[in-house]
């Protein structure tokens, strides 16, 4: 099987994942990721028409919670792991262009 991931695709994925990769790292990683993907893809050879695709291992549906308020964390607890905080809010580095 030929390389299923191109070097460009790996570079794009690295950008999406906010990982800085050097040219040398791209050269090194792209073929490796392809091998991994191809290995996983070999599972598709086992699939047959009578095996429905599944995304969940548990044979469960409709697991619900009633709409009842439960205790929250205190703001002190919530912010205890924050590297920076101000005005009882999480302080994060400036954001450019990624607003949802």
């Amino acid at each position, binding site marked *: 099987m030929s390389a299923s991931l191109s070097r460009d695709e790996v570079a794009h994925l690295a950008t999406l994942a906010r990982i800085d990769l050097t040219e040398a790292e791209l050269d090194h990683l792209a073929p490796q990721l392809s091998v991994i993907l191809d290995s996983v893809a070999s599972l598709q050879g086992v699939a047959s028409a009578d095996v429905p695709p599944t995304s969940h291992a548990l044979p469960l549906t409709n697991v619900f919670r*009633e709409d009842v308020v439960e205790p929250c964390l205190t703001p002190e607890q919530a912010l205890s792991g924050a590297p920076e905080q101000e005005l009882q809010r999480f302080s994060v580095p400036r954001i450019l262009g990624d607003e949802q």
Partner: protein
Amino acid sequence: MTTTTDTLVPFDEVLERYDPALGLEVHVELNTATKMFCGCPAAFGGEPNTHVCPTCLGLPGSMPVVNRRAVESAIRIGLALNCSIAEWCRFARKNYFYPDMPKNFQTSQYDEPICFDGFMDVDVDGETVRVEIERAHMEEDTGKSTHVGGLTGRIHGADYSLVDYNRAGIPLIEIVTKPIVGAGEKAPAVARAYVSQLRDLIVALGVSEARMDQGNLRADVNLSLAPKGSGTLGTRTETKNVNSFRSVERAVRYEMQRHAGVLDAGGSILQETRHWHEDTGITTSGREKSDAEDYRYFPEPDLVPIAPPREWVEELRGTLPENPTEKRARLQAEWGFSDLEMRDTVGAGALGLVEETIAAGSSPQAARKWWLGELARRANDSGVDLADLGVTPADVARIQALVDEGALNDKLARQVFDGLFAGEGTPDEIVAARGLAIVSDEGALSAAVDAAIAANPDVADKIRDGKVAAAGALIGAVMKEMKGQADAARVRELILDKLS
């Protein structure tokens, strides 16, 4: 003020050369007691980061569990929009790095929405337009960022951002239309009518506060232009932050004119997010729109699929309210309101209140008069919705009944409302405690009239000479003497009797 260098083509010329295609995405924030996947309160506001827990903060080891009532609301919205309800659907992770979601992903639905293939018939200037619904899916709201530093408070130029996660995880239903083509010059009006009537539907369902100004209902406007008659779809832009019905209409119109300017000059439209600016009525470039695959959606492994049993769906169908358009027509006929009176009542968010006031015994016109006059003014002054004023339809009906009986006049009735706002009890208790009832003691009234005549001999002479219009001055004097607690019509009768 944000300004623009965009070339805008006059609206009429846009229509000569291009066909617009519209798409609307409306996010509805549900009014459940708790968030979508955890038991934190979904209440608006609160001190920063007080409605948070390990799940909505995305802390390691926490696990989400779906709110049953949010699923019910999603299904009811879907049914009201004539959608099919999926027999099986799942959640998906939408991955991105903006810190408004502490998990680095938003839990949403992607390839398997819970509701799909519906429609809503929209009245536009007396004409019915069918808007096809592509899907309605469940997801969660994001946290609120405040940008610090920089000049404008917007993202660009900010030094850092502060995030409050109280809103993160509040249930949202995103309702997406199919492209609306063929609307031509009516495209802006169709967009407005759709969002407005969708809001009516959401209110009738009772699943959201549905206030656009508070962000309970948020519209994104997709627009593209194609050469006239080509039957194709052009590249679209998605305009966000459109927070009123009027803005929806203006944003569509603006983007049509802007697209035409770009296309006329031989340019091509960039597929991007645009920001709507309410103050100047323009859009500015946001970010380039990511392809869906850049969000690397994948099935949410921590939530099992939802397979709504058909009995449950049918049970929920039984809870649907009367279709709002039909209901409005029925009520207008029953009440004898003019088109304008009806539009004003609906626009003020008073339809339900007026309906309940009438049900409590008031005449339709009296109910409308109080809610759209005195009470609308007070709600406006205090910046709250009519429904949150603290006055019930039963109160209004009782006060009007006292007016009808002749026990109160309008001026005294307003003082009873003062008492209601001050929490002084029921209308009858307030009338008694404040001594507001009209004085029906003829002896006292007669004495006051005699005193007024004696104090104003020249006015009395005029009336004796047949200048009945002069009676107003004497009525005023009597009403003052009686501290407003007299029936002005009876006072007038007494004056004319005595001076004839």
